[in-house]
């Protein structure tokens, strides 16, 4: 028998080497209790959470939790069905209505996860003879969407407008083209030059999809994301988003003004051939989305937190993914995986959880300690976080 798992031997070996140093498995952390959007108990220790994407801290919002409980009582624990069969309840329609209102768009389609939203929309829009033009640092769900649709894939250098334009100009004029961009790139927390990119895409006759997973609720005047902030949201054909970040639950969606959008419900396989979200989840999402429409104060505090953490880490001597804070993600660049893992462990021992990110998820083979802020982090917590970074950084030799 040829062992099909033998191809993973190098990863098994790398893991064993890393764990033999006595390191806690960075990819096997268990949260024993969760006290709030910013604090959990891990390995018995009170731990500040700085790697959750829970940007707006909606997970423990009283109205959100109440809506979930009510739906659980009234509609049961699950739908046990596809959206196009027995899996569309009143709650799913209300959730889509909330999204249409939030984005001021004509159509909204809710998927079971954000991953499936990209998988479904990209694979359905771009078939075998069409071209998908994407940023090389795109999220895995975007690449997987391309693979599922068998489209021709053209990658361009991260956030490089000229590289995008040059490639668009080389494509045959009459073919279908989908340019896929992200508002905020989740590894370094940098923002895309959407204004310029959407303009060159439209000039080349391409349709544009923007994934705004990491901007919903706090970037742009109405929290609609980077496309709104840069004034090009009306030229974007499809916006993809998720409920598992700012919204504080799980699920994904696509919103659009395309007049034929509704047909996608029947032809999009990752929408049709899976069970819909449980009633409690769509109820919490709906309540959260509606509250995010009026989250001005929280938004301001989140941005303030991001600036304070970025400035503080820079002052301590850490190398960061961006010169200025551009989003609610601050990436601390580590010299290598070993140092990164040691630093991650030292922070955890200090009672701070961040994400250890490494290739292939990261660009250019980098090891990152990725921090994502929450609007519920208090000013004191941010100061505490910086203190922990100082101690762990000196202990591991990352900073002097």
């Amino acid at each position: 028998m040829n062992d099909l798992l033998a191809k993973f031997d190098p990863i098994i070996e790398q893991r064993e080497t890393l764990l033999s140093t006595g390191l806690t498995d960075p990819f096997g952390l268990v949260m024993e209790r969760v006290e709030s959007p910013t604090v959990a108990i891990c390995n018995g220790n009170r731990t500040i959470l700085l790697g959750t994407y829970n940007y707006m801290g909606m997970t423990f919002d009283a109205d959100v939790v109440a809506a979930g409980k009510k739906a659980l009582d009234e509609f049961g624990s699950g739908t046990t069905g596809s959206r196009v069969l027995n899996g569309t309840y009143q709650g799913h329609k209300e959730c889509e209505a909330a999204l249409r209102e939030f984005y001021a768009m004509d159509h909204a389609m809710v998927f079971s996860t954000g991953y499936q939203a990209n998988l479904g929309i990209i694979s359905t829009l771009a078939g075998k003879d069409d071209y998908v033009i994407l940023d090389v640092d795109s999220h895995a769900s975007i690449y997987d969407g391309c693979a599922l649709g068998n489209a021709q894939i053209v990658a361009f250098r991260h956030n490089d407008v000229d590289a995008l334009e040059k490639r668009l100009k080389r494509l045959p004029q009459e073919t279908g083209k989908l340019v896929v961009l992200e508002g905020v790139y989740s590894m370094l927390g940098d923002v895309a030059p959407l204004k310029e990119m959407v303009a060159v895409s439209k000039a080349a006759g391409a349709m544009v999809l923007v994934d705004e997973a990491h901007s919903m609720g706090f970037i742009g005047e109405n929290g609609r994301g980077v496309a709104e902030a840069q004034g090009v949201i009306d030229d974007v054909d499809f916006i993809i988003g998720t409920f598992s970040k700012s919204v504080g639950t799980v699920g994904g969606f696509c919103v659009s003004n395309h007049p034929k959008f509704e047909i996608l419900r029947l032809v999009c396989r990752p929408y049709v051939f899976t069970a819909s979200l449980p009633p409690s989840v769509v109820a919490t999402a709906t309540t959260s989305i509606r509250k995010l429409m009026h989250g001005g104060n929280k938004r301001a505090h989140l941005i303030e937190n991001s600036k304070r953490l970025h400035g503080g880490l820079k002052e301590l001597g850490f190398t960061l993914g961006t010169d200025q804070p551009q989003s609610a993600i601050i990436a601390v660049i580590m010299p290598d995986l070993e140092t990164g893992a040691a630093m991650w462990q030292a922070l955890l021992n200090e009672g701070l959880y961040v994400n250890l990110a490494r290739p292939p998820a990261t660009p250019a083979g980098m090891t990152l300690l990725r921090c994502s802020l929450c609007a519920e982090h208090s000013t004191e917590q941010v100061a505490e976080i910086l203190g922990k970074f100082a101690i762990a950084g000196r202990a591991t030799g990352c900073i002097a």
Partner: protein
Amino acid sequence: MTDRDQSLARVLAIIEPFNKKGIEVDENTRFAQDLEWDSLTVLDFVASVEDEFDVLITMNMQAEIETVGQLVDSVETLSADK
């Protein structure tokens, strides 16, 4: 020099600055195994080849190209199709 020889010479010239390990390169050199390029180097190299020949090499095509010789063949085909 035939057209193909010329294309090969141009490709070899583009490889040169990316060949940090100073490996001897010929038609049979494999990009992944012999030159040991990471994905970002591959992207930059492919972009340079695309610019030099004014063609587009999709990621689907890249997956099929293992050696320098195969790349030259692809570039020749793409240029002829224009």
